[in-house]
């Protein structure tokens, strides 16, 4: 499978908007959308957990070309904490309860929009990485925290 592309990010944005699905880019992919120069392998989405949003999410994923069985669709619709999709045109991680963020609504209020992409605030992205305590995050966190300082100074 090829790397995730800008065109696919646009497809996510458009498909999710068409179905009225509430979500935020999170993780390193979210930071990259905000200008963080680094590399990553897949896109992570923080999705609001609600019955209505779950149905919209499944419909949007199917529009994007993800092959979901009824059982998988039910799990996604129900909002399991973490779903990893590698059965579509690109890899996608769905997170319904990221570490370090209390509720979706809080993150939604603080979101940053860039070219129509809804992205978690860098404070939330950093909080979730700090709470995860993963080795790979520990290595990238100092640079991400420095970027937050830069981003806050230069944000337009």
């Amino acid at each position: 499978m090829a790397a995730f592309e800008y065109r696919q990010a646009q497809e996510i944005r458009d498909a999710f908007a068409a179905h009225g699905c509430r979500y935020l880019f999170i993780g390193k992919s979210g930071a990259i959308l905000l200008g963080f120069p680094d590399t990553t392998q897949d896109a992570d989405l923080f999705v609001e957990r609600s019955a209505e949003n779950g149905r919209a999410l499944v419909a949007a994923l199917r529009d994007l070309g993800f092959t979901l069985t009824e059982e998988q669709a039910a799990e996604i619709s129900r909002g399991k904490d973490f779903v990893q999709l590698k059965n579509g045109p690109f890899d996608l991680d769905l997170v319904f309860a990221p570490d370090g963020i209390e509720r979706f609504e809080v993150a939604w209020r603080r979101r940053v929009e860039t070219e129509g992409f809804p992205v978690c605030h860098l404070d939330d992205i950093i909080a979730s990485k700090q709470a995860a305590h993963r080795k790979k995050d520990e290595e990238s966190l100092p640079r991400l925290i420095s970027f937050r300082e830069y981003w806050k100074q230069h944000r337009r």
Partner: protein
Amino acid sequence: MNPLRHQRQGPGKNPDPQLEQRKRPPTIAEVRATCNLFRHARLSYGRPAPAQARARTRPQNRVPCSAAHKEHGFRRNDPQAAAHATFSLTLRPLYNAPVAQDPEIPADWLAEFEAAARRPLEQRLKYAFIKTYKPVMDDAPYRSFDTMEDYRRWCAENLPDWLGYGRV
């Protein structure tokens, strides 16, 4: 139009957008470029001028002002004069500008952040997303976990340590 003349008119009256732009703090790349220019100028001026240049400055050899000279403040084909003008226009405003660098951000990271900020989003994503095979992780088309704790535990128990998904 002589840009130096307009620079002297003071803020708010300057019609030249390039000069207006110089009021902002310089970027790292601009400072580096200016330092290179200054170093080059210092090396050039530290040596005696070539005989041809000395001869050109003698009163009897001076070239009368041309229309281009009046317009640009220096002759187009005189690199030394051009360097003077560039120095005046580029370096002097930079000396007076506030320093933008945050001491808490390492200089190499700052340079990377600024370079990324100049790229359009499409290009940033093109550079950012890569694809390499991750053993175990990429071997199933679908996985789901009831809790994040379940996911973290699965990563710790199943993924190779070098992938970095284990907890610190």
